[in-house]
């Protein structure tokens, strides 16, 4: 593990590019079948785990309450949810494998060292659909790395796959750059589990134009899409559009990379959101936040300068989790506009029009779709609309926060990468974000990313080990 040029002159059964959830699930599965596995993780040890480091839960189907989940979440309902958020842009066969495969995941994860926490209530209203692992994604990855080590999996950190020797759809060896040294690693099978390309701002700009410069990347800075590019250049089939991704609106003051969960802003449904021109642009109260948070990244991305501001008054201050950045506050709407760098007259007009349109009767209730809608606005706010009239007034600046991109390689039900002309590659597999676009053509369903990674990681590990004769 600590050698300067590990792997040189040896033949592995399975080489895995990437060191996140999908990579480790593949490694563990392959090693359990007796395969000799090498993981090439581009990040140093302290940043290992890719975006999985920032995860916390996964969405699993279940027919009865469990230790971690209340009620039931039948496969049919899960599948419907997925069809709805993707608007049908999914490979139904793979979507079904994902959803059906999710039911077994808590058992498998627990058996491989992952610990879950008892059902919690409140934070995200996910207690029915998503079990939470204790300590979050870094603890998840620690558990998997310990299990992998016990199974004899070898790991090189700081190891980026920079070249693939592929002939007729068959992998022979990979070039790996490790602490500035290039080495050639030979393996009988290759698994690409190296994430999306969201940390590659130039590539994002190809898809989004200059707007991409204003995006924040919520996760690992190591997901530059190098292996994805190699596979696409080698002629494998791609899925999903380059501008499709899981993106949420996060605090604009967050770091460029790796801000994770702590930069989220949950005030949207209890606020009005305005753009740089102090104009509203979307129904903030369309649905519960856990069902809508995933659309706001794209909404903000389409606004001028990719910036927006969520504005609340004193009544709403305690309705959402505290942010890590100090709230921007003023005693008047005009004062707040100045503090946020907005036109004071324009913001005043927007707030006045909104307040005047808050004519709905009935109790304000954050636990239901309370139907307190505005009337006559474009767009209207359809729930939780209350006048913004009690100082102090608070604003949070929002920017698009990209979680991961969907453009990836097409795979089949065994996670085998597809040739552009059709049919699977002989010994090349993909799992995780790099192939999530097969299931997610657009939209996002909270906690499905890890399910795709785990289900297809296990499939890739099994198929790769089988191919290697294990």
């Amino acid at each position, binding site marked *: 593990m600590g050698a300067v040029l590990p792997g040189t002159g040896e033949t592995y059964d399975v080489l895995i590019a990437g060191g996140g959830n999908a990579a480790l699930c593949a490694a563990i599965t392959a090693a359990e079948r007796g395969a000799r596995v090498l993981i090439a993780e581009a990040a140093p040890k302290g940043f290992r785990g890719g975006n999985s480091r*920032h995860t916390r839960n996964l969405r699993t189907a279940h027919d009865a309450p469990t230790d971690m989940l209340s009620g039931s979440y039948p496969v049919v309902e899960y599948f419907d949810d997925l069809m709805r958020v993707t608007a049908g842009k999914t490979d139904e066969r793979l979507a079904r494998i994902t959803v059906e495969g999710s039911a077994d995941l808590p058992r498998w994860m627990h058996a491989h060292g992952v610990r879950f*926490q008892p059902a919690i209530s409140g*934070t995200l209203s996910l207690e029915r659909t998503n079990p939470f692992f*204790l*300590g979050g994604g870094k603890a998840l990855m*620690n558990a998997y790395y*310990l299990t992998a080590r016990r199974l004899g999996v070898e790991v090189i950190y700081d190891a980026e796959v920079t070249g693939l020797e592929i002939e007729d759809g068959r992998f022979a060896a990979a070039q790996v750059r490790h602490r500035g040294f290039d080495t050639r690693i030979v393996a009988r099978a290759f698994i690409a589990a190296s994430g999306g390309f969201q940390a590659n701002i130039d590539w994002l700009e190809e898809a989004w134009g200059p707007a991409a410069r204003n995006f924040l990347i919520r996760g690992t800075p190591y997901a530059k899409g190098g292996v994805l590019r190699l596979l696409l250049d080698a002629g494998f089939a791609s899925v999903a559009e380059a501008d499709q991704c899981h993106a949420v609106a996060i605090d604009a003051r967050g770091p460029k990379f790796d801000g994770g*969960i702590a930069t989220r802003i949950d005030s949207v449904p209890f606020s009005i959101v305005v753009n740089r021109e102090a104009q509203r642009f979307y129904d903030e109260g369309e649905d519960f936040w856990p069902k809508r948070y995933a659309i706001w990244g794209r909404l903000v991305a389409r606004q001028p300068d990719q910036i927006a501001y969520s504005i609340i008054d004193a009544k709403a201050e305690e309705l959402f*989790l505290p942010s890590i950045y100090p709230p921007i506050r003023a005693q008047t709407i005009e004062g707040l506009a100045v503090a946020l760098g907005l036109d004071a007259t324009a913001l005043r007009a927007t707030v006045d029009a909104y307040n005047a349109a808050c004519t709905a009767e009935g109790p304000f209730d954050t636990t239901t779709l309370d139907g307190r809608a505005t009337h006559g606005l474009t767009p209207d706010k359809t729930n939780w609309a209350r006048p913004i009239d009690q100082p102090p007034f608070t604003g949070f600046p929002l920017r698009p926060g990209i979680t991961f991109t969907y453009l990836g390689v097409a795979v089949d039900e065994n996670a085998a990468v597809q040739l552009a002309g059709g049919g699977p590659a002989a010994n090349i597999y993909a799992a995780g974000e790099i192939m999530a676009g097969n299931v997610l053509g657009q939209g996002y369903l909270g906690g499905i990313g890890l399910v795709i990674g785990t289900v297809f990681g296990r499939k890739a590990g099994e198929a790769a080990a089988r191919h290697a004769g294990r």
Partner: protein
Amino acid sequence: MLDVSNRPAGGAATLAEARRTMEICNACRYCEGFCPVFPAMELRRAFSDGDLGYLANLCHNCKGCWHACQYAPPHEWGLNLPRAFAELRAETYAEHAWPRGLGRLFERNGVAVSLATALSLAAVMILTMALRSDATLYGIHTGPGAFYAVVPWEAMVTLGGLTFGWAVIAMAIGARSYWRVSGGGAFRWAALRAALRDAGHTRHLGGGGDGCNDFDERFGMGRRHFHLATMWGFLLCFAATSAGTVMDHLLGWAAPYSWYSLPVVLGTLGGIGLTVGTAGLFAIKFLTDRAPEATSRWGMDLGLLALLHFAALTGLALLAFRHTSAMGMLLALHLGFVLALFVTLPYGKMVHGVYRLLALVRHHEEQQTR
């Protein structure tokens, strides 16, 4: 080696770092299943100095949150909650020490405890020799009152009583001061009962169920078991001393006692627990990953571990060799260590027991009255 760059930054900086960390933790909340610190944190949106002192003492330093932290170094935010809280705990010990000026003893506590130990040992030796002849120290003494032939009964009772009495008073005053500052309200018996139950089996050294991160990202029960041995060892020794005091002073049965007597049985079990427990805790400290450790405060931890270890070890040796000529010397050594322990009780790591118990009481109180 101790990391000298990791010096305590002083009160205001320690508080600021703890506050910055808690504010980020409160936006993340991934660690909420590990221990009571996070549920207590989630009841708050802002953190006063008293809140932070309370949360720091509620932390049992299991380090589960460090190994799970997506914002730990090398992340640019560089969160290190176990270390921030360990440093803040030491500040609270100093802040609530009585008399106030003696809080400074926490600044270089290892040195303070070492000096107190050396002086106590010397004092007992000199006292013994001054009050008795040299020959007494090396003679063989048996039968009832044998110990008092070496160290006079009056001297033992006076010194022990005064230092221990002082310690109890000082720690009680510190506890009262801490309770007020940390925002504790009316005292509830149900909360105390629940806190004592937690403390009795060191529940929160259980991490999320599989123990602490003793060395690295693996979980283990080592620290918990050694701490249980140390804590119960100490309590058994205390019970042994109390039983001996009652038998000797009230019932008039002069020590030493037989192997099967209550004080000797309790003291032997307690002594073994203390010796083994402190050795184990020392070994874990020596081998653990130091990144989440407040190594600048290790003098305090190691000082108490060493004192307890040698007090127990000399006590066991005294028991084993009390019928030989080594008894006089061993008795003087044992009493020297015990005296040092008593003298430093309110000005050393032992106060963690008081403040952590009170933090648990507070925690149960606020959870019960939510």
